């Protein structure tokens, strides 16, 4: 059930009208609306995503491409719009302008359910788990296995079985699938939330700060799980995190979102923590000096 993402479709590029220019520089496509795929297997792509909240423009044309099986790290200051961006991708909010493409086809998400039907799942920062319910109940929440249609009689035994099997597939060690979530550690809770998002055919997983407020051991559990989902289950991911060390361990590629644009898109091998830090800090310094300029003029 989870190997859906493994089924590669090399004819991906054929879906897009402007295909066949492998030498295309991604930067040259920005804002032009060309859908060339440069021969890469891109599962999710955005073009010029813009979002305003009243007078505040949070996103000013964000172009992101997520390749199949890739883990993409999204970095940016607080308030840079990372969370808004993933909320648009999962159908929780709607963009004002811009397009989203899944496997080369333009899609329009009116609800979280819409995004789910395209295999896009999100794990919220608060995990959306119910502490008093068991691991199994949380894993199946709102997608329960039921008997007798509308009456909705729960098939508890079958759900427990499947939960057990799925966690052992994921190599996640839990005290029991009957344990309540409140009895689990932070890392185990994150694992349950990740498992819930990927149990059904998730192809793209959006993770909003999955490692926030976690100890080293806890983080290791989550990092291993994310790697396993990406390598062995073919799930592509966008991960928001503030910790560069974690991101370099997890991700294949890093994007920096700043001032409403993606200002850097590089594979982790091609960049370094120092470079990212330098970029982020120099932006900050530039802003500070601009601010001082303005003050002086005023």
């Amino acid at each position, binding site marked *: 059930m989870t190997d859906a993402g493994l089924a590669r479709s090399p004819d991906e590029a054929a879906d897009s009208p402007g295909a066949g220019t492998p030498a295309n520089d991604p930067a040259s496509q920005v804002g032009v609306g060309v859908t060339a795929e440069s021969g890469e297997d891109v599962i999710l792509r955005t073009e010029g995503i813009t979002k305003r909240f009243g007078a505040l423009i949070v996103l000013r044309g964000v172009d992101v491409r997520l390749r199949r099986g890739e883990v993409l790290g999204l970095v940016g200051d607080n308030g840079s719009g990372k969370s808004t961006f993933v909320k648009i991708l999962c159908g929780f909010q709607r963009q004002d302008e811009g397009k989203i493409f899944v496997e080369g086809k333009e899609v329009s998400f009116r609800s979280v359910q819409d995004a789910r039907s395209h295999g896009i799942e999100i794990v919220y920062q*608060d995990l959306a788990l119910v502490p008093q319910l068991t691991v199994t109940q949380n894993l199946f929440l709102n997608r329960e296995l039921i008997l007798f249609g509308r009456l909705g*009689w729960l098939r508890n035994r079958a759900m427990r079985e499947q939960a057990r099997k799925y966690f052992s597939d994921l190599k996640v060690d839990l005290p029991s699938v009957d344990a309540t979530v409140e009895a689990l550690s932070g890392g185990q809770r994150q694992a349950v939330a990740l498992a819930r998002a990927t149990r059904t055919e998730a192809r793209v997983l959006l993770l909003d700060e999955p490692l926030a407020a976690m100890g080293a051991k806890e983080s290791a559990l989550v990092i291993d799980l994310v790697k396993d989902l990406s390598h062995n289950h073919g799930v592509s991911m966008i991960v928001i995190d503030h910790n560069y060390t974690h991101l370099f361990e997890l991700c294949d590629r890093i994007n920096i979102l700043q001032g409403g644009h993606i200002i850097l898109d590089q594979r982790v091998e091609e960049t370094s923590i120092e470079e990212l830090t330098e970029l982020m800090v120099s932006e900050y310094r530039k802003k500070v000096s601009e601010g001082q300029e303005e003050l002086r003029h005023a």
Partner: protein
Amino acid sequence: MRRVVDKAFARPETTIFLVCIALIVYFSIRNANFYSYTNVVTMAQYIGPIAVVGAGEVLLLDLAEIDLSAGQVLLTAPWFVVFLQHHMPLGWAIAASMLLCAAIGAFNGIIVVSLKVPSFVATLGMNYILAGYVLVASSDIETDMTGTTGKFGSVFGISNWAEGLWSLGIVLIIWALLKGTRFGLHTTATGGNQLGAAEAGVRVRNVKILCFIIIAVICGFIGIIDSIRIGSLDPAAPGLNEMLAGVAAAVIGGTALTGGKATVLGTMIGAVVLGVLEDGFNLIGISANWFILVEGAVILAAMGINVQLGRVTARGARP
């Protein structure tokens, strides 16, 4: 053996079950009439409505809500039947009065969900509206209940076990609903983490409104049965007492007021404890005034024990 005991005590109902057995043994020893047929019938009739109100309140407490109007709905439904019977046959009057109860529940639910009025306040308002309605519509005059004759009256209240069995049936349905169905799971999920449940796609507003409808319907129904058994309606009967007895049964039985933790089974045992206490005190000749004092002490003790046991087991479960 130890594991069995540990497991039993991890359940919230165990303490109150033991207390219940102890009380039954104690009163049986003190007075042989306690387990006589007539006395057991009396107790069943007393316990029935408390258990039904309690089972309804369990749904709401599970949501971290409460319905303070449930007892007054129980008392008002038979008045609906009496008034409606002037215009239609008895069967229709009962059906129509159940619909009115459902509408009251829906109104409560919509006020809570849409206007975001806390359920404590919204349903307290509804309680006084209904109490006032009964006083006004009856001109504060006691009335005979209709439908108390023939086979109908026998099935719906008069015969010895009618009220007890109807109550048991209703409680078992609520138990199955909460324990075995998707709706029950979504109720607990909503009470445990409303935002989280909503993010997972649970339709929390619908779940809440439906719970308010269910409690109003079952309370209205058992109210009609109760009145057919008693035969008359007292317009000044205080509904808050019925409601608080139900909430007490739920809380004694191990249901938390904070949501996400509910037991219908425990509520049923809690109702039995209240019934046994009241009846037992009567039989051994202790004044009813003492009963109220003891009821208070039992609620405090049960709550204290359950909270402590909850802490211990939660700690035990942590790996």
